[in-house]
């Protein structure tokens, strides 16, 4: 059994950033385990531009952004096991994995960083009636077919869901000669970035039908068409508004779910709202020495924040691995309380005395809110109040609490994050 300081599960943007940061923090004996045959994760199929504006101050494509982090990992000589599937992780962090050359084998790291990313919500989870004909794909699957394998999944396309991947694929399929008839969105607002609505839909005159959904899929062998209906405020279809659209392909872009089979298997507590592990100020799960970052922790909209978060998780994992198990025991733990329409915050509970220089809290709101202030209230005292002209579920919010803000209090009794009218 091989011994490592840190094992990182997944070589996407989170895993790569975590590995480089952990190395720089002093942990030299690191292994990254990746099931695909190349590092980079989902960035490899995200060939569009728009990545890295925050990190590199320039607009990179997905593969270009990945290449910069792959280079950092290679420069540091960090081990990477590709085409290797992690089967399970035991509570004592023993990793069982397999690949074609080594068969089934185990690895014993001192710390683990869970960076498995996320998966798309599938048709089965959407409960759309109809047969199971060919021609129904998740937007990400279509993206892989077109951008990695060079196949066109169809010609006459309807897209359900206006998440960013759906919008990006509307443009991509159009550029490759398909006819994208419409994008239907259940909610009265789009889940995607404004920029993508303008540059992926408006540029090509593709209609975005808000408050509409697919209520039936026609065709037995191949998709022949879909029935689209308007939905009311209760998100239920309104009788009499059904309209038939012939098409041969239906793409689904209806949300992403953190991938945490391994985390669950080892007994990590999962947050009911994010679908990712519950973590503390160090991005450590409820199993000591097991950390998480990126889309496995909670779904992000910008990769720059994934890299930033994962680097923090990597540094914390290094600190844990190097200190042995003699990590100082935290004296106090507080849950971060939420109100005013905030759906979740990561981390969800913190130990104030373990915060090093600052604490970044990332969160999402549940609906579109205008002219609000985002407030952080410690022991009943408002310490941060930031004007937010618009907050939307599709755009992650964050606040940074500096350590000296917390040090003012002899004892931090409560932390509340809330919104108020401007």
């Amino acid at each position, binding site marked *: 059994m091989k011994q490592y300081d840190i094992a990182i599960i997944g070589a996407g943007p989170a895993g790569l950033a975590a590995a480089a940061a952990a190395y720089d923090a002093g942990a030299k004996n690191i292994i990254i385990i990746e099931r695909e045959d190349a590092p980079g994760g989902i960035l*490899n199929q995200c*060939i*569009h531009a728009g990545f890295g504006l925050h990190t590199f101050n320039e607009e990179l494509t997905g593969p270009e952004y990945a290449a910069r982090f792959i280079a950092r990992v290679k420069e540091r000589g960090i081990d990477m096991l590709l085409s290797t599937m992690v089967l399970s992780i035991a509570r004592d962090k023993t990793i069982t994995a397999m690949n074609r050359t080594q068969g089934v084998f185990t690895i014993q790291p001192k710390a683990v960083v869970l960076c498995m990313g996320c998966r798309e919500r599938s048709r089965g989870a959407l409960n759309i009636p109809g047969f199971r004909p060919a021609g129904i794909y998740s937007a990400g699957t279509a993206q892989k077919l077109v951008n990695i394998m060079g196949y066109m999944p169809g010609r006459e396309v309807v897209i359900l869901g206006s998440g960013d991947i759906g919008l990006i694929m509307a443009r991509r399929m159009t550029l490759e000669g398909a006819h994208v008839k419409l994008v239907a969105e259940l909610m009265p607002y789009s889940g995607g970035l404004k920029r993508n609505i303008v540059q992926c839909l408006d540029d090509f005159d593709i209609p975005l039908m808000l408050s509409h959904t697919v209520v039936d899929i026609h065709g037995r062998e191949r998709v022949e068409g879909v029935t689209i209906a308007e939905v009311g405020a209760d998100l239920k279809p309104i009788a009499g508004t059904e309209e038939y659209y012939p098409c041969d392909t239906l793409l689904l872009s209806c949300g992403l779910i953190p991938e945490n089979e391994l985390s669950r298997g080892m007994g990590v507590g999962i947050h009911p709202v994010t679908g990712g592990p519950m973590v503390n100020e160090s991005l450590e799960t409820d199993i000591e020495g097991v950390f998480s970052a990126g889309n496995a922790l909670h779904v992000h909209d910008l990769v720059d924040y994934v890299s930033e978060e994962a680097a923090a998780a990597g540094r914390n994992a290094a600190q844990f691995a190097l200190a042995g198990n003699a990590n100082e025991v935290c004296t106090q733990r507080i849950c971060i309380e939420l109100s005013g329409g905030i759906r979740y915050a990561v981390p969800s509970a913190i130990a104030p005395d373990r915060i090093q220089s600052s604490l970044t809290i990332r969160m999402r709101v549940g609906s579109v809110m205008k002219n609000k202030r985002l407030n952080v209230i410690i022991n009943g005292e408002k310490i941060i109040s930031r004007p937010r002209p*618009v907050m939307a579920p599709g755009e992650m919010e964050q606040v940074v609490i500096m350590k000296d803000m917390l040090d003012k209090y002899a004892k931090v009794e409560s932390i509340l994050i809330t919104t108020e009218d401007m």
Partner: protein
Amino acid sequence: MERKTLTCICCPIGCTIEAELEGNHVLSVRGNSCPRGEKYAKSELSNPVRTLTSTVGLTGSATGAAVAPVRSAREIPKGKMLDCMKELSRVSVAAPVHIGDIALKNAAGTGVDIVITRDMQ
């Protein structure tokens, strides 16, 4: 005089901007809530540009990959995107390729090259 309506993409507010223009010259901009909106509307209406990304055929790849991702080295006029795609559909490159390699010179007469965006063996 012509009137055009567009959505600002500078921030999540997404102001609906109404502009009056004479040919390519923007006379007035209304509906924006900050100066960035005016700047965006003026450049978008006088000379809309986009970064084009796509794939080209790849031959002889050791990993069996059939396509390689590409981008326009700079932004190109929005109206030239489909012309560039037509030219790109006939382009094929031989592995190995590296980030920044030119896949197509002066795409559709824009003066902009199309370059590879991923190292592929």
